[in-house]
Every structure is written in structure tokens, then in C-alpha cells.
């Protein structure tokens, strides 16, 4: 990927929201980012419905027996280059479900995770800060 397209990528990140059996709290906070108060379209980010149009995957929730292989399948369908962001404590490391009978393994052992935004749920400000740090990391590559 050339320098020009990489610079364009950091200015226009299409975000796909992959819910991996969450409790819906993080999902509501993600949708908050689109509201007039936070408005991530200022940075050129839009929420898309199809994984084929996505540059970034926001994963919420704990990967369990059913969703673990499906989240891997969704990640493989994302056109590269693409990044994965773990939103919330569950996606970051299992939270209070880590000793559950249904827990397989942490998300970052299933697919490569580029950024972690902990919190239960994280604030929209925290998500925006995480994405801005991710943009800086992409630019340095």
C-alpha cells in the first residue's frame, strides 16, 4: 500500500461494528459516537453495515463457543489493510466472564487486535481517544 493511500486511509476510516455476544452497553456507547454531541464524521469516520466496506472492526463482548469462530470468519472477510479495536473490558480480556464455562480464549488470541479501549462500558470520549491513537500508529508504520 503506497504512502498516498495510507494517508487517505487515516482520514477516512469506515467502521464496522462486530457484536461478539456483548451485553449491549458498549453497542449503545458506540452509537453515541455518531450523535451530534460527539459526531465522529468530523474525522471522516462513518459506520458501515457491510464488512466488505470496512477499514476497522469494533469488537464488543466476550468470544464464546458460538461466536469465536464466527468473529474469526468475519475478520477474514475484511479487505486488508484493516485494523481491529477491542471495545470494552469484555473484549479486552474477558472481564468477569473469564472463568465462565462458555469462555474460549481472549479475543487477541483469536484475531490480531491493534488497540484496546477498556471500560464497562467505555465512554465515547475514550473510544475517540483510542481511535486517534490508532491513526497515529498507522501513520508511523
Amino acid at each position, binding site marked *: 500500500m503506497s504512502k*498516498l493511500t495510507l494517508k487517505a486511509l487515516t482520514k477516512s476510516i469506515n467502521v464496522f461494528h462486530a457484536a461478539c455476544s456483548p451485553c449491549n452497553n458498549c453497542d449503545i456507547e458506540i452509537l453515541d459516537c455518531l450523535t451530534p454531541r460527539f459526531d465522529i464524521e468530523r474525522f471522516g469516520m462513518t459506520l458501515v453495515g457491510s464488512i466488505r466496506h470496512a477499514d476497522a472492526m469494533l469488537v464488543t463482548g466476550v468470544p464464546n463457543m458460538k461466536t469465536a469462530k464466527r468473529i474469526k470468519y468475519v475478520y477474514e472477510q475484511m479487505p486488508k489493510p484493516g485494523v481491529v479495536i477491542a471495545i470494552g473490558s469484555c473484549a479486552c480480556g474477558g472481564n468477569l466472564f473469564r472463568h465462565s464455562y462458555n469462555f474460549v480464549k481472549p479475543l487477541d488470541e483469536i484475531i490480531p487486535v491493534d488497540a484496546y479501549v477498556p471500560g464497562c462500558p467505555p465512554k465515547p470520549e475514550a473510544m475517540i481517544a483510542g481511535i486517534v491513537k490508532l491513526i497515529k500508529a498507522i501513520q508511523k508504520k
Partner: protein
Amino acid sequence: MKALFNILVFPGFLFASVAGMIAIYVDRKVSARVQWRKGPPLFQPVYDFVKLLGKEINVPAETSVITFLAAPFFALAAITLVSTIVWNNIIAPQSTFVGDLIVVVYLLAIPSIAVIVGGFASNNPIASIGASREMKLILSYEMPFILSILVPVIKAGSIRIGDIVNYQIVNGPLIGSAAGITAFISGILCVQAKLSMAPFDIPEAEQEIIAGPVLEYSGLPLGIFKLTKWMMLFVIPSFLVALFMPGATFIGNMLRYVLVLVIIILIKNTNPRIKIDQAVKFFWTWVTGIALLSIVLVLLGR
């Protein structure tokens, strides 16, 4: 050589794509301001397009690869030709051939057909639903669109866009007459559906069928489809400007185009999406009725 310049640079591909990018920027910014947001930065469409050039191209399994990848390019070629013909006529009304109005009407159907072909070639149930909705939408808006185009044809007595433009520069714009304003109203509703904007964004309804026919596209083909959409946002309203209210100068025509664009954006932002059966009923009764009324009025000489 001159024809090649016309098609590739001005007023063809380059001109239409730059103007289309500005138009989609205006659309997104005005929509954001209506929703009390700040909106995207100025070069957002450029970033969106350049980014897609560098992405991986995915092709679904068990499909015709050539059909899948060629569909966006047919759409782009058709809309480039329309831009060339329409803006050549607006700038120098005597420069094109007789019958170009009919050519333009045919060429304007090709982007929608390319979307349908691409959607069915995607081998995906949701994309197929989107493509079939697009097909029903074409069936509903084509008839009133052609009926409302007939009004300037009858008034100017010619099927050449240049003659229609000349007639209105001499005799005053058509939109000032009763027949002209009714035909313009039905025409702008059909244009709304042709651009698949709310309330007629049924084929790519984001909340129900994700992205509709372009669901499986990624990388360069998706970028071409997006560019075609943006160019249509510039070309089709300027076609309406040429038919109903052309000005004598280039700047005047641009200002009239911006006026039509703002009307389209405001309709988009103040109306909820309707269902496909409601859209067909709406176009075949109300919009066709208005278009027929305008034809009766123009035959009476109003």
C-alpha cells in the same frame, strides 16, 4: 482530438467527477448541519476515493468474475457520456447532434442497470433483494420521467437539447409557465428516485438491507460505484436545469444547478424512507398524474 478532450477532461470525466465530489460534500455538510452536527472536512470525498484504490478487492465465490467487476465501469462510462452531451449543450447549444435527448434518456438508465447486474452477480441474498428493489424502482419512475421530459420537447418542437436551451434563452425559461412548473415538480421527484436518495433510497436501505446491491463490492470497484453515484448527483440535476431553466452564462447555470441540488438535499433530509410498494403506487398515481397534467397544459398552450 477535440472529442477525446471533451469526454475525458471538460465537460466529461474530470469535470463531472470534481463537481460531483463537491456536490456530495455539500450534501453531507448540509445534512450534518440539519442534524445539528459539524460534518466532514472539505476533502472527505477525495480521501474516501483514494483510500479505496489501495484496498484489497474481494470477489465472492461461485460467481461470474467478469460480470461482477465490469458492472461499475459500464455505469461510469455511461454517466461520463451524459455529462459530456448535457454540458456541451448548455455551453454551446449548437454543438451536438439531433436526437441527443433520446440518447441521454437511454444512457441515464445504464447506471441503474449496472447496479442491478452487479447486485445479482454478487451471489448474495441481501444484494439480490436490493437489486430487485432497484428494478421495481426503475419500472416506477421511468414513465413519469419521460412524460415530464416531453413538455420541453413539445414546447420547443425539437428532440435536441441545444434547441430546447436556445428556445428558452430566447423566450424565457420554461419553469415560468404553468406546464413547466408542474413538469419540473414531477421531474424532480423522479430525479430523487434516480439518485436513490431518501425518501426513495429503498434499494440501499442501510437499516434493513445493509448496503443493497453494492454489499459485496470492495476496493476499486466500490470506489468506481461511489464515484458514479457522486457524478450522477451532479449530472442529473444539471440535465433538469438544461431542460427547464437554462441560463445564458456558465456561472448562471452553475447557480441554478446549486438551487436544484439544495432542493434535492432538503427533500432528502425531511422525508422518511417509504416501502417499495408505496413507491410504485406513488409514482404511478400522483407523479404520473402531475406529469400528464403538465402535458395537457402544454398542449393547451399554457
